């Protein structure tokens, strides 16, 4: 198979906030960058982020990065790596100012400074009064940031490969990653892109679940590629369920709705978060609020004819606040539920939202994997940033407003390290044809014709298994069944056939390749979850209700090759400040 080859200094997979922030840094430094994205950049899922980005600007209430760091460590249920968290929180303010200079239309305070709103899990003075740390452009912050980053990339003349799908990495015998096999979706033509450095910024995998706030494209492609290239996935058992997805439908209602003063009630009209988090109530961490809602519903205090959701009340805020600060979710409510939150509460239920786990990296964005006795050996030239990566700054539970921050901080960090790497490594390492052929085989397998199951039916079953067996509350038995069912689903995939064999814009083929990625990630998630015998952050075990620091304050690493789990210690030592030791987590 003779496939054309193009060579770049850096190949970036994914054009969301992480990929675009890195691309901008690199293009401005005159590196030759290719950004490959299966959708036009502004369709990437960063566009759907609503509430804002955390940075201790102190525009509204006193604040500093160290308090932000404390909140993030506590929010992570002490599974976050404290060096990376310190790095992120210290960088936050600078990166938000930089975005503002780049043109992001942040909402403004009367003083003309960037508008900030309170979000869950934010405190002053290490667990004191509520902080106001989330910088917002109304409730369309992700849209504003993604478009601005794309716009500045146009100015920097970044090379975009829009609507190209990355199939697999091309490696060599030493395990180095030298490029990727990609497909131009519009024509079906293949292209090998070789690069001295590669950044994986492909985002999350919310399509693992049936009801999700995530877009159709969030299929964890980079994670699947990493698994197949022999790189483990870290902490995949920690999947965030957002407390306020529209019940039964999944559209996201920003945490900013509670930040602006909204609150949750059960069927008795009781503001039930007062029982679960007496101090901060509705602004507790997301894992805490999601569990509370699930318990309310399970114990029969849910709303609606099936008692299967709770209500988010914004009707006391007045139309000015809602129109000014939450216009996007107001549109969503009107469009999908024919209700106006100005006068009617919104039915909500915890909905799959964000994967804390991912491709293991250090705080420079470099991909690391265990090697011999070293738990974290750097894979030279390979980087990951954003939701597909696990630095880990989110640990077992991410704070609202920290994901937009994560993509900016580690998109930039990766780009900085890449520039250093490029200075020292001036030449491409030619890839071995054997590895190109291997990647091609996986792609070509879908050209087999004949009768067989459809991609869609397998994808639907997979999502159902994940929803039923790896949800908010988990037990040994349910997850063991889940593992068996995913195994069974994976054995069906070789018999799936595509009826659409056209080369032109074949979305069925793209979905088939996505399904393979999802199936491997589902296994990583279920296996990691089944093994962790404790409750920490988003991972709640009914059979192990407590956190167990002695046995489980460690990161999971799942490898695809031999379907095994390994563990590595949490980095509890920050860069400069004192460690925050594990404490009981109360809100």
């Amino acid at each position, binding site marked *: 198979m003779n496939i054309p080859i193009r060579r770049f200094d850096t190949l970036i997979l994914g054009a969301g906030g992480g990929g675009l922030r890195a691309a901008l840094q690199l293009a401005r430094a005159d590196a030759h960058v290719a950004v490959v994205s299966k*959708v*036009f950049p*502004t*369709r*990437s*899922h960063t*566009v*759907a982020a609503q509430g804002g980005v955390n940075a201790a*600007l102190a525009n509204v209430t006193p604040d500093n990065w160290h308090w932000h760091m404390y909140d993030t460590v506590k929010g992570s249920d002490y599974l976050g790596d404290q060096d990376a968290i310190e790095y992120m929180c210290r960088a936050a303010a600078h990166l*938000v*100012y930089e975005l*503002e*200079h*780049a*043109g992001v*239309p*942040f*909402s*403004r*305070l*009367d*003083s*003309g*400074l*960037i508008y900030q709103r309170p979000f869950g899990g934010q405190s002053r003075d290490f667990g004191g009064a509520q902080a106001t740390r989330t910088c917002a*452009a109304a409730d*369309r912050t992700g*849209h*504003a940031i993604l*478009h*601005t980053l794309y*716009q*500045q990339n*146009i*100015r920097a003349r970044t090379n975009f490969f829009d609507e190209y799908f990355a199939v697999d990495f091309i490696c060599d015998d030493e395990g180095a990653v030298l490029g990727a096999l990609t497909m131009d979706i*519009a024509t079906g033509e293949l292209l090998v892109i070789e690069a001295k450095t590669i950044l994986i910024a492909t985002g999350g995998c919310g399509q693992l679940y049936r009801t999700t706030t995530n*877009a*159709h*494209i969030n299929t964890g492609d980079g994670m699947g590629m990493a698994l197949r290239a022999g790189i483990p996935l870290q902490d995949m058992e920690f999947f965030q369920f957002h407390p306020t997805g529209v019940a039964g439908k999944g*559209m*996201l209602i920003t945490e900013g709705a509670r930040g602006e003063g909204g609150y949750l009630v059960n069927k008795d009209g009781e503001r039930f978060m007062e029982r679960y988090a007496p101090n901060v109530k509705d602004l507790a961490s997301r894992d805490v609020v999601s569990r509370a809602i699930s318990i309310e519903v399970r114990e029969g205090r849910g709303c609606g004819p099936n008692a299967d959701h709770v209500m988010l009340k914004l009707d006391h805020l007045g139309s000015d606040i809602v129109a000014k600060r939450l216009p*996007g979710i107001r*549109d*969503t409510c009107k*469009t*999908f539920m024919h209700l106006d939150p100005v006068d009617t509460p919104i039915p909500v239920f915890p909905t799959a939202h964000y994967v804390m786990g991912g491709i293991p990296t250090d705080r420079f964005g470099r991909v690391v994997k265990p090697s011999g006795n070293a738990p974290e050996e750097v894979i030279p030239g390979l980087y990951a940033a954003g939701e597909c990566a696990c630095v880990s700054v989110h640990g077992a539970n991410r704070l609202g407003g920290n994901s937009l921050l994560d993509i900016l901080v580690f998109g930039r960090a990766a780009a900085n390290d890449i520039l250093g790497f490029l200075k020292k490594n001036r030449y491409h390492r030619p890839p071995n044809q054997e590895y190109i052929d291997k990647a091609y085989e996986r792609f070509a397998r879908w050209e087999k014709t004949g009768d067989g199951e*459809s*991609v*869609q039916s397998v994808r639907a079953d997979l999502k159902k298994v994940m929803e039923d067996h790896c949800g908010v509350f988990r037990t040994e038995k349910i997850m063991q069944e889940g593992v068996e069912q995913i195994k069974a689903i994976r054995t069906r995939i070789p018999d799936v056939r*595509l*009826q*659409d064999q*056209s080369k*032109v*814009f*074949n*979305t*069925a083929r793209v979905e088939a390749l996505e399904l393979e990625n999802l199936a491997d990630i589902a296994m990583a998630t279920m296996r990691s979850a089944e093994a962790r015998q404790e409750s920490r952050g988003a991972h709640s075990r009914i059979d192990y209700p407590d956190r167990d620091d002695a046995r489980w304050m460690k990161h999971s690493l799942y490898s695809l090759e031999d379907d095994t789990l390994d563990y590595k210690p949490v980095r509890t030592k920050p860069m400069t400040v004192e460690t925050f030791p594990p404490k009981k987590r109360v809100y």
Partner: protein
Amino acid sequence: MQDFVLDHVKPGMMLREALIELKNQDETLTFRHSCGEGVCGSDGMNINGLNGLACITPVETLTEPVEVRPFPGVPIIRDLVVDMTGFYKQYHSVKPFLIRYDPEPEVENIQTPEDRDKLDGLYECILCGCCSTACPSFWWNPDKFPGPAALLQSWRFLADSRDQAMEERLDNLDGPYKLFRCHTIMNCAYVCPKGLNPTKAIGHIKALMLKHSV
């Protein structure tokens, strides 16, 4: 035209979900879609003669049989998928990015809430292309006329109190095929799924250009 039958329309079903169900019947049916909530701008198409987003168009509101076509006036790649290259090129042509010449402050630029309000109704554009592909001026001169989406973005930066490139932006829009190729037909404002009004923005640019040239 290809016929499809959907047996059961669920209450509240959006056209995107209906198309997905039809694709499950026949996987060769091809269209772009992603977020499902009108934010990513992928699934613009012509629905019973009007451009719109499939994901926020309720099937119940549509007259049957529902006629779904690709955007008019742009090259078709396959089924409902069109080639948007020309549309993006025009977007790029208006320099859709903030330009400042002053040194950067250590903190944010100050912008009053009143100045920031001027960007409402402009920055929310999702580049779905509904407006430009509904515009007869764009159909006639897609290679020369920036079209409503690009001009809306041009005004988004002209209206931004932080931007310092008014003159080059206006110079860039001068000429018979640029700004003044808009004949206020207003299809753009009529079809915009986000409720934005490119015609109004174009009017503001025209006024500014006049003021600037006298």
